[in-house]
């Protein structure tokens, strides 16, 4: 076993030990252009529960950005497209010159649960929202 492999293996062992490798990173081309759970009642219900449990603190119970924990984006008029939404959830987003930020949920939320949250958010969309077109960063 060469040194490089040994180091890589030990990093993986450590990661497994800490339980942080349960959900591997998702490559861009693995994210579908449209949400596979769109219109799926069971998925929307689960997504709503995740949304209320995890996202509503900042984005508000109505998804209008009126959360108790700061100024989340108004997700009712999300313009990023489905793929853009998934990117932001995975990578997070910062505001220049500000501390408050959208944290990265990569390795924290399962990719399927992120899709389900998206399926729920489609149900509260208002004019200006864009869930059906491709990627908009």
């Amino acid at each position, binding site marked *: 076993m060469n040194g490089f492999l040994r180091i890589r293996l030990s990093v993986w062992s450590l990661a497994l030990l800490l339980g942080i490798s349960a959900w591997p990173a998702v490559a861009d081309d693995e994210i579908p252009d449209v949400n596979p759970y769109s219109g799926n009642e069971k998925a929307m219900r689960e997504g709503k529960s995740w949304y209320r449990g995890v996202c509503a603190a900042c984005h508000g119970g109505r998804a209008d950005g*009126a959360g108790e*924990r700061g100024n989340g984006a108004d997700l009712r008029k999300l313009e990023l497209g489905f793929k853009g939404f998934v990117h932001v959830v995975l990578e997070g987003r910062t505001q220049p010159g500000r501390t*408050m*930020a959208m944290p990265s949920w990569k390795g924290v939320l399962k990719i399927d649960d992120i899709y389900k949250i998206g399926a729920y958010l489609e149900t509260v969309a208002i004019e200006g929202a864009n869930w059906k077109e491709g990627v908009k960063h």
Partner: protein
Amino acid sequence: MQIKLKVMVIALGFAGMAGVASAGPVSEQMLAQDPSDSWLHTNGNWAGHRYSALSQVNNRNAKDLKVAWTTSVGAKTDSQATPLYHDGLIYFPQDNKVFAIDADNGRVAWKYEHKLPDDWGGYNVPFFTGKHRGVAISGENVYFLSNDNKLHALDYKTGKVKFVKDYQDDGIVYPKDFAKTGDSNGYISTVGPMAVPGAIILPMNGTDTGGLEGFVLGVSPEDGKLLWKANMIPRPDEPGGDTWPAGSTQYGGAGPWITGSYDPELKSYYTGTANAYEWNPKNRGGGEMDNLGAASIVAVNTESGKVNWRYVGVPGDPFDYDLPQTPMVISIDGKKTIVQPNKTGYIHHLDAQTGKYLKADRFVDKINWIKGYDKNGRPIDMVALPKEGGDPIEIAPALLGGVNMYPNAYNPNTGNIYLAATESSMKYGFEDIKLISNVRHFGAYQEFNFGDETDKAVNVKSGKEIWRDTQAGKPGYAGGMLTTAGNLVVYTTQGGRFTVADARTGERLYEMSTGIAAKSGPITFMHKGKQLIVQALGGTPGFGRDEANSVEFGHAIIAFTR
């Protein structure tokens, strides 16, 4: 003879005042005074009054106020700290830095900077990072609690660090990035410390970063070593220990998250505490058990760390109401009384010595979560809780509270307390409690219905509202209240209107539009023979998205004088 005696008494009184220096190291005697020349406690005095004995600026001349200087410390998040002033310097914490600002001109005299750990992160942490609500000063040290719960003692003249003390070995761990650990739970310090005889008081709160139970620490002013650790949640063998199901307290919340008050005779530190965790109460008695110590007022003996009493204002708190506000110590009809306006929409009165409930005066227009409090301080007819996963229920006030963390004030001359209040309601529901990286999430959600900011005066004895200043159509709270012997109340609205009003009538005597939301209380002090009023501003108005105030994120510190 009688006149002569009176003159002598007055002369002796002045001599006594003159005997308390207002420069040099901060003595215990100086810490025990109501603020006049200096402002040495976050809440003005130990009793939490935010009342200054100064009257150079008063209700007759406040109209002549002018801006003396403005400055900025480049805040990257809300500026929530009430500054301190002593011996020419204003002390202000922001973004894990401490700034000493020259009261002559607003220039930074010295700056101290602390770097957070590389693995800093976790649930709600970006929301809290960089926010601070005060520092303490005692002897030659300024005491600062960084977000990662380290106590920094800094030379008050130079900012040179004397010691930095970490309390992780005492169980006070900081929250860590989800991706870098299997356990992100931790304590996060945004609250300021308090200097009392023989100890620096450190409130430790982990409630919203996973729910680790709350403590108040007493530490040595010399080296920061732990003297005692008071648990807000009673142990099973303490009174009220049976109000929690077995095994539910480790993540039970109840963190003290605002600087409390202190009574030197009773040697008691009084603090409000946060909600019980999780918000969804199914793991802690389903709202049927009291969860004493959470959403409570707690009295801690500052020599032993023993908890003298606890009073729960929201038994089994299912609404994230908590009772975090500073419990003021006020003498009413000769009885030392704890007076705490809080999120519930009521002002609670308790006996300071025993914790016995005395009364609760309603101060907001809309309340429906209960019909009042009975003679024992128990809520009357609390609404039925929503079903998990079912429809939300309409509750008033919202969990934003009648008042929130924005500090209130008490003026012994008018007998009024001045409230940074708001009207609001919410739709509130329970959901499954999600677990991520061993962090339990709230298990509840809310949809806010914002009402108007209502800055108001309430007579503390009668409970009657004396005046109100309603910001029609503008939700939020004043940043905090200051009141003075000059018959003044000073506050800045969430929409950025700096306001000096008559304390008895509410008549607005001076106002200036700053264009920046206030999230902290103003202070006043004497500097080179002139009374200055200093207001720190900064942050985004309201909670969440709030276009109504038409104010963008900003920051400034402004000094006013005649």
